[in-house]
Every structure is written in C-alpha cells, then in structure tokens.
C-alpha cells in the first residue's frame, strides 16, 4: 500500500492503495466518482475513459502509481453544470439508450474536439471507433459529436 495524492477535477484527493491499482478503481471505490464506468478492464471498450492532462485515456489499465501530478478530469468534472458543449449536444440529440457507455463516449469526444475542433465525418468515425455502445446508438453519437463541434 502507498499513499497517493491525485489532482482530479481541480481538487486534491488522497488514497491508500496498492501501486498497481488501476485509476478506474481508485476513482470508483476510493473517491466515489462512479461516473467513470467499468466495461472490460483491458482498455478495449472505452467505458472508463477520462482525461489525463487533457488527453483521453483508459483508466482501467492505468496504474495509479503512473498518474503522479498529472491532471485528471472525469465526467463529473467535465463542466460545472453539465453544460460542456459535448454534454449539451448529447442531450439535444438524445443520444443515450441504456446510458452506461456514454460517460466514456463523452470524454472521448470532448478530448477529440479540443484537438480537432472542426472534424470531418471520417475523423469523427476514427476518433469514436474504439468506444463500444452495445445499444448501438452510434448514429446519434456521430450526430452529437458533429453538433458539439458547432457549439464550442
């Protein structure tokens, strides 16, 4: 066990955990930030996506020991009032079915649009391809990313 001080959503959180504990489980079990979801544990579905220094990463395969002082943003910290352009677009397009994968989808889309503010349809496809939506809401995910790009 070791003590970690993590910078998450603009706050400092502390946890006593084993160094190999994935960030996902520290967020969920230790900090109660359960908006970040477990889907596969091997970085293959994208449900656990968070931002690390502004980049979308899979928190289920990132050991807490590797986080250091890098800034973590989770779905809970993406905006103050759920009004990030991507969140607003997700609501307007009415994307979610079961909703379980959507935090990961939103975090992937938000990081992507920061780097690529005016994406083409192919760029959206490539950016979102690694996030699974088992309900098959892909058409609306694509539409919402496009809409969000006009809001930012």
């Amino acid at each position, binding site marked *: 066990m070791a003590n970690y001080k993590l910078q998450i959503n603009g706050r400092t959180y502390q946890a006593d955990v084993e160094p190999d504990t994935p960030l996902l489980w520290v967020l969920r079990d230790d900090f109660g930030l*359960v908006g970040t*979801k477990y889907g596969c544990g091997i970085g293959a*579905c994208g449900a656990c996506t968070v931002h690390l220094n502004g980049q979308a990463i899979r928190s289920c395969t990132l050991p807490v020991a590797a986080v250091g002082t890098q800034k973590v943003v989770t779905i*809970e910290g993406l905006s103050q009032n759920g009004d990030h352009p991507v969140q607003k677009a997700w609501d307007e397009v009415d994307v979610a079915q079961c909703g379980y994968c959507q935090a990961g989808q939103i975090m992937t889309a938000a990081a992507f649009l920061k780097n690529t503010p005016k994406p083409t349809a192919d760029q959206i496809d490539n950016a979102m391809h690694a996030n*699974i939506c088992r309900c*098959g809401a892909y058409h609306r995910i694509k539409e919402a990313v496009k809409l969000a790009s006009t809001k930012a």
Partner: protein
Amino acid sequence: MAQSTSRRDFLKMAATAGGGLVLGFNWFSAKAEMPSVVSKTVLAAGKAEFNSFLTISSDNIITIFSPNPELGQNIKTSFPMVVAEELDADWKTVSVVQAALDTKKFQRQVTGGSGAVPHSWMILRKAGATARAMLVEAASKRWNVPLSECSASDGFVIHSTSGKKLNYGELAEEASKLAVPSDVKLKDRKDFKLIGKALRNVENKNIITGKPMFGLDFHREGMLLAMIQRPEGFGMKVKSVDAAAAKAMPGIIDVVTFKNKVAVVGKSTWQINKARKALKIEYEKEGNIESSADHDKIFAELLNSDKAQVRRMEGDVESAFKNAAKVIKSEYQCPFLPHNPMEPMNFFAHVREDGVELAGPTQTPDSARKGVARLLNISEDKVTVEITRLGGGFGRRLMTDYVLEAAELSSIIKAPVKVIWTREDDMAGGSYRPSVRYRFEAALDASGNMVGYKLRGAGINAGNPTRENNFPSGAVDHLLIDSIEHKSPITTAPWRAPITNFLGYAEQAFLDEVAEAAKNDPIEFRLGLLEKAKTSPAGAVRYDIDRMIGVIKLAAEKSGWGTKKDVSQGFSVYFSHASYVAQVADVLVKAGKPVIQKIYAAVDCGEVINLSGARQQVMGGIVDGLGHAMYGNLTFKNGVPDQNNYNKYRLIRMKEVPEVDVFFVNNGISPTGLGEPALPPTGGAVANAIFKASGKRLKNQPFILEEPYAKAKSV
C-alpha cells in the same frame, strides 16, 4: 423538459407537501384499472392502497411513478408521456420516479418481450384522463361556472367565456376532495400533443453528468465487495479449493465456497480481483464436456432424427414434395452468443435476521424476489428489491443467478455485500443465446408457386427454435414444422428477440433462395404468398396480413426497390412481438468485399409514443442485428468458451455501421412491441443484398467467417 427524481426525494416531498392531488392507480392489475384518490396522510404513513402514483402538489409539481425496469428501452420517458398526454400536463413540470418492486399490486413489473407499452397503454391513458376530469371539475366549482365552459390545456384549466385560468397545482387540493369519476373520455388521437413527438429521455441530465444510477454504482455504508470464481468450463464442478494464498493477500476479508462458487470478499474491487487469481481450484467432470466441433456433429444427427416434435402440420407434405416441379433445400446455423450488456452482472444483497434487502439491475425483480425467498426459506414479504437503472440487459437480466448468489453469499458471511462480475465472468458465465441449425425445404409447382414448406429446427437448449405460426404458415397448403433439442451443460437464456433473432434471418434468407428458384422478385414472391393466405388460408393465420403488406410496400417505396442501378438490394420482412418490420439493405462491393451502405426500415408498431425513443429502438435493433450477424461468435473447447473479452469477441463499432432510415406506419392502432421487432429482419435483408452483390449465399453466422468475407468454413 421532464426530469427524473429519486424515490427518496419523492417520498420526502410527498410526506411534507401541504396538499395536493394524489391519485393512486394500479398500472398492473387487470381488475382495478380505475384510479382512486389516496390521502397524503395515508401516503406519508406508507399505508397507501396503491403503488403507482400520479401526484400533483400544490406547488404544481406533477410526479409519475414508472414501475418497469429501465435498460435503455426508454420506458421511463414513454410511460409518463402517455399519462401526461391525457392529463394535458405541461411536460416541463413533470417529474418521473422509478418505483420499487411491489408484487402484491403490480402484475407485470418486467422488462422483456417488448410487452410493457402494449400492456399498459389504456391504463395509463385512463389515469391521466381521470385526473384531468377532476381538475376541470374542481375549477368549475371554484368559479361556479358550468363544467362545459371549462377545459384543460398545458397544465391549466381555462374558463372559455371569461378567460380565467388556474394551474393544476392551484386546483390539486380541491380536486382531491371530489369523487373519482367512473368513466372518462379519452382524447381523440388527432388532439395528441405529446404522443408521437420526439421528447428527450428524462434521465439525460443524470447520464451526461455521470450520476450514480446503475447497479454497479450502488453503495451502502459498510458494504463489502465480492468476486466469484465459477467453474471455468460447462460440465465441470469444483473438486477442491486451496484459498490460503488468496486469503493472505492484502484487504481480503474472507473466501467462501458454496455451490461450485468460490467467493473472494473484501473492500476493494482491485484487491479481490487480484486475490481471486491466487485461488488454487481443482475441477472435475460433472456432465458432458462439449466443444463446438461436437455441436456440428450433434446438429447433423438431430436434423436426420425421427424423434422431432411436430409443431405445425398442414395438408399432405409428402405428396407435395413428391410431385414438385422443383425442390429447394438449405441449412442455416448460428452460434451461441453472450448478451454482453456494457454493465456486467452485479447485485447487492443484505440478508439480515428480519429481512433481506436487494438492489441492482434486474429485468425481473419479481422473479429475483421469489427466488431469494425460496433460497433462504423466508416469506416473500421479507424481501425488498430496489431497481437500479440497467446498463443494458438484452435478456441476460431476466435470469436471476447473479441475484441469488449475492443473497446466498450475504447469508453466509452475514454482511451486506455487492457481488461484481468481471467482463470475463460475464462473457464466460453462460445463459447464452442458444446455438441452432435449421433445415428448410420448399416445393415449387410448375408455375413457381410454393406449395410445400418444411422447417426442422435443431437447437442446443433452445426449447422450441421455430415459431410455427409465423409467416409463411397460413400461406402454404402443405407444411410441416418440427423441432428437436439437444440438452447441454452450456446454459442458455432469452436473448433480445428470442429465437427470432436468428430464425428471422434464416427464414428470410431461405425465402430469397426460393424466390430466386421461382424466378420471381423477392417482394412480389412474398406478396403472392400473403395474397394466398388472405384468399385461401392454409390453417390458422396468426399475423395480420394487411399490416405485413403495409410495411412491405412502405419499405419498397422508400428504398426505391427495383429502381436502383448502382447498388444491390436485399429484402426481408418479419413479424415479432406483435409488430411488423420490413427492411431493405443497400450493398456495394468495394475491393472484392461487400459493404453495407444503407438499411431502410418500415415499421408498424401501432401508435408511436415517443418518436425519439422509437427511432432509437429501431436503429439500435438494426445495429444489434447487423453486428451480431456479422461478427458475433462464441465457440467452445472442452466446455470452455474461447472468447471472454472484447479483444477476442467482436462487437460492432462505429465505422461498421451503415446509414439507417426509419419509417413508421401511422395507423393509430394501439401500440405493439418495439424493443425487439427491428432486430430479426436485419440479417436477412443484409444477406440477401450480399447475395445480389456477390453471388454468395450467407448461411451461417457470423458472416465474417463465410464467403465472400472469408474462405467458407464447412459445418
């Protein structure tokens, strides 16, 4: 927009609000469909007679309980919409609450079979209309004007001659003192303001901000976490367990063995996951140890067996085939499939001396409660079930294995515990879509009419893998449908559109083969059969011929059937869960491989309640049907699944999804199912289009292992 509220917040509000109309109505009892007024004091004391409430508080908040588990079918939005429509409520002031399980009052608190809306449609409408009538009457009394001069609109009662108006909240308390009318007039559908509109999901805000909603998010103070090691293969059982190393790992509270399960209990998900890998378990054979190669042989035997059970027989099949001008014979096979909801199985249980608390994602809270009561030998009323949101279900959460094991573990360790399945547990844990092989045979006469039809369904733990009364039954004079089953240790369960998820494809692909042999257009061929079923039916016709013709013609028109030169089109139509869906797929060949460009869907599900949710169900159903037809494949070696996570099991992803266009038939018939019916036709439309494009008939799923995608494997 309407928002969801937690049950706790609602109860707090109900207990403290000054006054208001609390209308109890029973959504699920056939005998008590009419609402009655429940007083606030009774409600606050928890003694209300009814368990489904429509409340209008004095401060004009309208609350509607939604009793069915929500897994993405959008029931938590569409149910309240129906109530709000007849109530003439302002949708912005409506708040929706997920009801807990109450088996005494509810008849169908289940998500499955696309049955919730058809079941509750009239009950929901009556509840809303009753409240509206009482509010209007209260206003007419307050103003001392004739009832006929008062009407309701958008959350207000309006006096037509003076223009005076009051919102519902201002009238709620007076309305609550009136007698409940025994008969109320429902709206004419031309006056609908909400039904048929695209309204956003009431949970959107919670979903996009990551609020705790799902079973895996459920938390209780002092709750322990557990993972369970189950036998790695089907047909095996635990012989011995050496848990010493696992118990010595940090954070491990206990390791418990029960019923072929070894549970590792602790406080951190990561610690129990690691400790579990340190378990040393020996297994021994308990039943047949089967591999996929064995199943191929089993299917071949079953298809030629003389022990099949006849499901439907018409005319003289033997003569029809003997005298046929042409006979077409074809076999289709599908693999087992896991459900793979994104949220893996999990459940919370706290077994105490005085009762049991359960909470988590279940499609069938009633069965979960009954099962736990039986398991622990206690009465059902000692068990409470809180229904969390479900991160998908697809039928997997109609099973209660994961609820029972949580309750059993809690009873052994005498502590509140949440059992968590990993993705590997979920995918390798059984309850699969059964593997099935069909043999179809058709007899054509000299004019190309299908005069004989045979279907043999052979399934592994599939029950009856046919739907013997579906089309083309009723349209063929000489018909034999039978089935036969192999019992396997590999467990199966309903999977979205049970049986028809594969039968729909196989049947529609076979009919395409028959139409080709008859040198007929696939759509004309089907319309000819339907005409025959209408004018001289062969036995009972259990589908609505005109509704089926309606979607066929709509799909043909919208897709430009027969007019396109640049793409190859494939057609299919299927009736399931009381709804009708026809689809056309457009396929192009690029670099030698077929690429699905677009799928058109024509849907008759009767009245569409929420256009946004309805479109999602159809588009999602098509993506689901396409994805699993193309890629879904669970195989076995010596009882052990070969695929147990997304690196080995392929689910459809964004780039593989074609454009989808959805068209609804607007006929005003009472709503029929929609969560499932769009899935069964998809594989057929796609396979038939791929045949047109490539000349290759796809007869086995997943398509990706077949020509023209790969060199065909022989089965």
